[in-house]
């Protein structure tokens, strides 16, 4: 039987087992929405802004192992989606975006709502397609899903002109895909893996540094086994939190700009560093030249060869799927007779423990007068039993959430690490809640970020998404204010958030529950109350200390051992160490 292009597009989604898609209708996608309307398998979540559709699909993908799917119209629909596409691209999140396009015969004529979608998105997608023939829709969507989830994952855009979505052809969904110019790598090179094993065994001051790749590849179990077998210290980047349990004593915290003192120092002073699905990002290793001052052997495992030797020299590159590479590395280690040198390791741990003590770990000076943001996250961790899915926006609250919520499982911490997209948290939480309907989902945000996609409170009402919004309201764009305080002579240019809405009333206006919390003593009761309301979205507006800063901090352009600690007691100064 012949189907229209629109019907074919929806049938393809059904074939891929897509349960939810996120989108917003418009002229160029009307045929596709019509086809969507006439079936029940693929459910559509109507967002209030296309950016949110992308973030929701993104949260859906990050909190599961599924491909997120978004559907937007041409022109402004697509341009609104670009921030969400770029967010997913930077963090390698598998997504398929279907966009409508003006009719093929009108392309290039500056038609109403026309934009060169393939051109605009080209630098921020893994790949994109403009469909020119209705017969290409099914094979292209098949390819899009394959590209999105294989190799280093990423977003793939399929742009479908309106006339083509209305033409008819026979529907055949291909069983398999073969792209001659694209062959994702599976296993790593065995010789390199053996070399890596030997270097690890001979290390005196080893360090395991794992990133988002460990989560994307589903290699958390292998990573954990590797760390346990070796007994080495392990650090997880912002994108990698949860791949190794944060409550374990071999975990030294997050590295980098707002990492722990011990993680930064251990990264800097180790003699063997094994990078597992991490990319030596500027926010992680700080100044490259400073990092290179200390001689160390670097083993780098990554599925993307272009991530290797991009910023630092690598001694043993291993290209492959982390899960398979770590499996092989573990079997090489277990099969050999040698164990890591216990005496060297003990000395190294002694040094790390000294850094732990001197750096003061993650501590802050609590107050009975004013709510400290870190205190809210600590209580959030306790009240949710450490088992919630936590999304965040971007800024100070994001760093505190990453520092103080001890993630023990992968895919529980959902944030925009690479692009740093404010407005990500709430829509991402929608996607998380949909694919994990019984889970506790918290969105840690600030009064700045939340207003970038606050309209999604309406979507949450329509689809009964009982997200718990934990807003750390300090009346400032806190991270901007912190940098202005440190590096711009306390000149707080445009970082004060004046004329804030009454968030309680705003939440209520959207049909949700709002709570304002002013006193430290009310933090825990408010969280308990909010999380006991299983069916309600509760917006918690915590009035937090506007002067609080995120510590430790490696200032931009500085080296890892130039980390600044909280000047307030109980921390000793770095110079004393």
């Amino acid at each position: 039987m012949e189907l229209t292009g629109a019907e074919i597009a929806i049938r393809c989604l059904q074939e891929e087992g897509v349960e939810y898609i996120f989108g917003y209708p418009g002229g160029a996608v009307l045929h596709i929405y019509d086809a969507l309307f006439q079936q029940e398998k693929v459910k559509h979540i109507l967002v209030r802004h296309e950016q949110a559709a992308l973030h929701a699909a993104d949260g859906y993908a990050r909190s599961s192992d599924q491909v997120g799917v978004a559907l937007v119209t041409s022109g402004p629909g697509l341009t609104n989606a670009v921030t969400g596409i770029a967010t997913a691209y930077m963090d390698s999140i598998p997504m398929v975006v279907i966009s409508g396009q003006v009719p093929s015969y009108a392309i290039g004529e500056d038609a109403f709502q026309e934009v060169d979608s393939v051109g605009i998105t080209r630098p921020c997608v893994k790949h994109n397609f403009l469909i020119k023939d209705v017969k290409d829709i099914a094979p292209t969507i098949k390819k899009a899903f394959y590209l999105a989830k294989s190799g280093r994952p990423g977003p793939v855009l399929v742009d479908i002109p309106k006339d083509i979505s209305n033409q008819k052809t026979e529907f055949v969904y291909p069983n398999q895909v073969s792209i001659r110019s694209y062959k994702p790598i599976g296993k790593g090179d065995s010789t390199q893996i053996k070399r890596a094993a030997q270097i690890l065994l001979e290390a005196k001051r080893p360090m395991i540094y794992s990133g988002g790749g460990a989560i994307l590849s589903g290699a958390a179990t292998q990573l954990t086994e590797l760390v346990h077998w070796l007994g080495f210290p392990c650090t997880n980047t912002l994108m990698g939190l949860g791949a190794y349990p944060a409550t374990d004593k071999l975990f030294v915290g997050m590295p980098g700009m707002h990492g722990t003192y011990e993680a930064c120092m251990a990264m800097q002073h180790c003699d063997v560093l094994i990078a597992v699905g991490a990319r030596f990002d500027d926010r992680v290793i700080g100044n490259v030249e400073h990092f290179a001052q200390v001689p160390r052997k670097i083993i780098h495992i990554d599925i993307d060869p272009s991530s290797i030797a991009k910023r630092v020299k690598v001694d043993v590159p291993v290209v492959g799927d982390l899960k398979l590479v770590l499996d092989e590395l573990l079997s090489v280690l277990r099969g050999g007779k040698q164990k890591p040198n216990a005496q060297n390791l003990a000395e190294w741990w002694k040094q790390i423990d000294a850094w732990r003590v001197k750096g003061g770990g993650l501590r802050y000076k609590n107050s009975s007068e004013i709510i400290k943001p870190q205190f809210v996250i600590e209580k959030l961790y306790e009240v949710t039993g450490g088992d919630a899915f936590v999304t965040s926006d971007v800024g100070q609250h994001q760093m505190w959430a990453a520092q103080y919520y001890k993630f023990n499982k992968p895919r529980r911490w959902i944030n925009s690490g690479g692009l740093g997209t404010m407005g990500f948290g709430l829509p991402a939480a929608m996607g998380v809640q949909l694919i994990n309907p019984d889970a506790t989902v918290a969105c840690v945000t600030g009064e700045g970020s939340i207003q970038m996609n606050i309209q999604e409170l309406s979507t949450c009402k329509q689809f009964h998404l009982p997200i718990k919004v934990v807003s750390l309201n300090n009346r400032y764009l806190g991270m901007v204010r912190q940098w202005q305080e440190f590096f711009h002579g306390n000149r707080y240019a445009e970082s004060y958030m004046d004329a804030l809405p009454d968030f309680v009333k705003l939440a209520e206006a959207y049909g949700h529950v709002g709570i304002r919390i002013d006193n430290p003593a009310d933090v825990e009761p408010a969280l308990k109350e909010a999380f006991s309301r299983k069916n309600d979205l509760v917006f918690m507006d915590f009035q937090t200390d506007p002067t609080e800063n995120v510590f430790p901090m490696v200032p931009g352009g500085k080296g890892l051992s130039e980390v600044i600690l909280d000047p307030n007691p109980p921390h000793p100064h770095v110079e004393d160490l």
Partner: protein
Amino acid sequence: MRHIISLLMENEAGALSRVAGLFSARGYNIESLTVAPTEDPTLSRMTIVTSGSDAVIEQINKQLNKLIDVAAVLDLSEGEHLERELMLVKVSFSGATQDKLKRLAEIFQGRVIDETESTCTIELTDTCAKLDSFLQAIESGAILETVRTGALGIGRGNRILKL
């Protein structure tokens, strides 16, 4: 250092802009870029002349390989290879310089492909450096137009870039 990178890619709309976009987005140099379909019309072969440190060239190769439409990449400069560029130069001449110009073209193994009373167009195929020398040898005021294809490259002997 100067590198000549050859690649095979799907002969599809937008493939060229993916490569060009990659170079501009990541701040890599392009000295020249030339592209045309191969004997297999579904594949295009592109030759890019670029320059950069070893680390940058390594990244360029990796980033090119990462493009979905790119099927194979070969850095010709890493081994023995041949390089050719085609140039057309239109020059103006008076009676006195005409002979000198033709002699020069002969020395460089060029051919005159068009001639009028006051102009003459010379076709020349050689390495980029040779073409530069030819241009230097002509009195610069005489050059009316220059058009060059950019370098093409091919490996010597058994160095073959093919799917």
